[in-house]
């Protein structure tokens, strides 16, 4: 059996197991839901973190996404992948949370805190080198990760979500068009614009 068919077999087994868990959840089995959550919480948490740029808010939003998923799981018919369905919920919840936080000037306050350098340590991941990058190298440092997150926060919401899903989380165009209910061509053109916007922002900040 080749590597490709092995991978395919493993993903199909994974999907069957996932479907079993979903079926049990639909019957109200909370333990199965806990298992499903453990499978997806890291991806969802990282998605929410990149969308909001704050660990605290990301944690709250992830909780809300899973609660919404549990409450709506009976409407999941298994036509799409569970992760696709879950991401649809995540996208809706994230949009609503961003609107809510924007009304309360959360992002403006966060930017001010970051500009004064009071937030950089708590809001950036650990284990990265502290040295400042040169534009030519642009290698990943703690500061560069912070600058990227700042740029992500600045670009429009639609561009941000598509960039996170494709270039950070690695979803395919087909999955993206299913999650966002858009045609593949629209997804592509939006992604191209989003990449250009981020490139422009990073160039300004790093050069």
């Amino acid at each position, binding site marked *: 059996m080749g590597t490709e068919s092995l991978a395919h077999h493993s993903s199909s087994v994974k999907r069957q197991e996932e479907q079993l868990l979903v079926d049990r959840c639909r019957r109200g089995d909370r333990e199965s839901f806990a298992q499903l959550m453990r499978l997806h919480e890291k991806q969802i948490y990282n998605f929410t973190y990149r969308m909001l740029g704050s660990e605290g808010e990301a*944690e709250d939003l992830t*909780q809300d996404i899973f*609660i919404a998923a549990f409450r709506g799981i009976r409407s999941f018919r298994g036509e799409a992948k569970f992760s696709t369905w879950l991401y649809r919920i995540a996208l809706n919840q994230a949009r609503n949370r961003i609107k809510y936080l924007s009304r309360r000037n959360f992002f403006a306050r966060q930017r001010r805190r970051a500009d004064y350098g009071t937030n950089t340590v708590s809001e950036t991941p650990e284990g990265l080198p502290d040295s400042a990058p040169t534009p030519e190298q642009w290698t990943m440092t703690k500061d560069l990760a912070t600058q990227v997150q700042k740029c992500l926060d600045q670009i429009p919401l639609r561009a941000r979500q598509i960039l996170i899903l494709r270039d950070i989380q690695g979803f395919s165009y087909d999955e993206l068009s299913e999650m966002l209910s858009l045609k593949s061509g629209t997804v592509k053109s939006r992604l191209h614009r989003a990449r250009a916007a*981020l490139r422009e922002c990073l160039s300004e900040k790093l050069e």
Partner: protein
Amino acid sequence: MSCGKYQSQFNDYLDGDLSLRKREKLQYHLKECLGCYRKWSSLHKTQEILQQLPTLDPPEHLSAVVMARLKNRRLHRPLWFSGNLPRWLPLGVGATLLFLISVGLWQVMPSQYPWQSLFPGSRKNVVTSTRPAEPSQETFKIREGDSDSSAPVMVLRVKDFSRADQELQSMLRSFTRPPLPEKTSSSTPHARSARLIQLQVSGQRLPHLLRELHKIGHLDQSQVERQKLTNPGQQQQISIRIVVVSNGSDVEIRQLREGK
């Protein structure tokens, strides 16, 4: 090919969607053109940075918190609240409710729009005219028993019954059709068509009655006018005796009065 066209292929190149031939042409161009190379380089590095962004571990307590929150909630949402319903549904429900409320209000509240005449059956109990409502015909009452001789007398010389109110028409006709008593009718050849009616009419109703009687023909209302002058603004019911002459003359009327 221009630089713009090469640059439009950058994203497909990044995604690995470019054919071998196009890819080779683009790679060759990037070696030749510094401007395009810089743009490509920054785009490529931007994507690399995004892919290299560290993955965060969620807090350890996350699933425990979610499960604890779920324990305090209802097990499932009802299906109709599952989020799978179309987005336009609340809007549709709202619009329908608004429409029903509007129809309800339209049925209840009086209005003056001309298009209401398109739906004549829909406003049966509503006054659509802007004119003040006229008292109903029931304020005319034919007095039973002895006639009141002090009541003012009006003489109506009828020309055309059909111009009056339907109700008034039929009432007057009913009093003119049967022949008068032999004693009165024999005095003059035209008296057969004359008849004395005693009406009770409210003060408010009187102008309307007079207007209708004027439509029918000549009306001598001098006695009534005198009565009105002596009791201005009368609201109580007054008695009127009307002498209806369907084919008569002043002489006949005078005779009728004298004979009474």
